[in-house]
């Protein structure tokens, strides 16, 4: 196991804990995005590039987007819909 993998795995654990423990919902989603990006790199290092592409597109892309849409639905996304008021 190379140094890069160890650093990435530690960052992965840190991201997982931070995404759960942070109080700010938008920050939580952004941390989740970074988790997925690091996971994609790790899939690539584990020699499964198919999963890496899917993880980057689904985890960091579509899932976070749906999270942001959900946050806007429950009006937890501050500073975006301010122009309506």
């Amino acid at each position, binding site marked *: 196991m190379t140094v890069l993998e160890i650093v990435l795995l530690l960052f992965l654990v840190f991201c997982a804990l931070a995404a759960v423990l942070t109080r700010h919902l938008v920050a939580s989603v952004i941390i989740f995005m970074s988790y997925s990006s690091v996971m994609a790199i790790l899939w690539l290092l584990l020699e499964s590039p198919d999963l890496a*592409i899917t993880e980057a597109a689904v985890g960091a892309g579509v899932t976070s987007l749906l999270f942001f*849409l959900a946050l806007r639905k429950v009006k937890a996304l501050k500073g975006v819909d301010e122009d309506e008021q």
Partner: protein
Amino acid sequence: MSSDPKKESRFERFMRWAEGEDPAQDREVAEDPERAEFMEYLEYLDSHEHMDFGAYRLMRYRERAAKGMPRQETHSHEPTAVQPARGGFSWLRHRPGQFRRQVRLYRILSLAVAAVLMVTLTAVTLSMPGFGNPAAPALNEVSGRYLEKGLEETGAVNAVAGMILDYRAFDTFGESTVLFAAAMSVILLMRRPGQAEGEEEPTDRILSQVGRLILPAILMYGVYVVLNGHLSPGGGFSGGTVLGCGLILASLALGRRAMERLLPPERLTHLTVGCLLAYGLMKGYSFVTGANHVGWEIPKGTPGAIFSAGFILPLNICVGVIVACTMYTFYTLFADKEG
């Protein structure tokens, strides 16, 4: 109001107190600080357009009072309707001070469940065979055959594409059907006729310009991943997701109206259904030719060429279109501000 105050429901009495017309109240009603506080609360609810259950009841009460029928012909809120719990369920009744104990119990129990799960999962993970261990039970003749004969039998250079779109194509068919069913349920639940109008053009100039700049690259990469799925890493699902992200970005950068013209919801549905049917037909063909030695097999072509590997390329295209349309449909239906 009512001639018999005892038969009045508790809610009615409360409402008359809140409106300041309770004759049974001795002190001066207008100077009641609790009532003033309550009216402040109601004004807060009014000003914030926030509706909770109490505000809803108040609104209905005022409507009834305006129509001149203050008594509500319902019996569900009579005081007699609140029966004490009978039988063996008396311990379920709420008592003062019980809630705090229940919360503490809940916390202890959830911590215990989490700890047990954690220990179990860690123990199982540690007892699993190591990565690449030749004695692992997952390393049986199935994966060996996939790796040894996959290129010969499916014609796909990318062994993963050969697995998910040839050996296990019905798995992928089921996944596509699940996506299709999810998209149809969301359309049924959330689509309202005539909602396409009233969507303004994009106002954020940075998003619009940068989106226009990187959009061709994203879409091109998605198409490449789909079309090259049997030759290089990728395939229908990942490429379709990239394409779906690109379509969502296009909707953000170019405006919803332009995307409505390009991809109206009906066209999305038609595309998805057409691709699903094409997938089913192509895999149904395998029923006829596959194991029966009929002889009408699809020519495999030269491994490595773009037109090779039998049906894997069109299957990849079908899956990619289904996934992209589903992602984009989810986005368009959930993105409406008044949803």
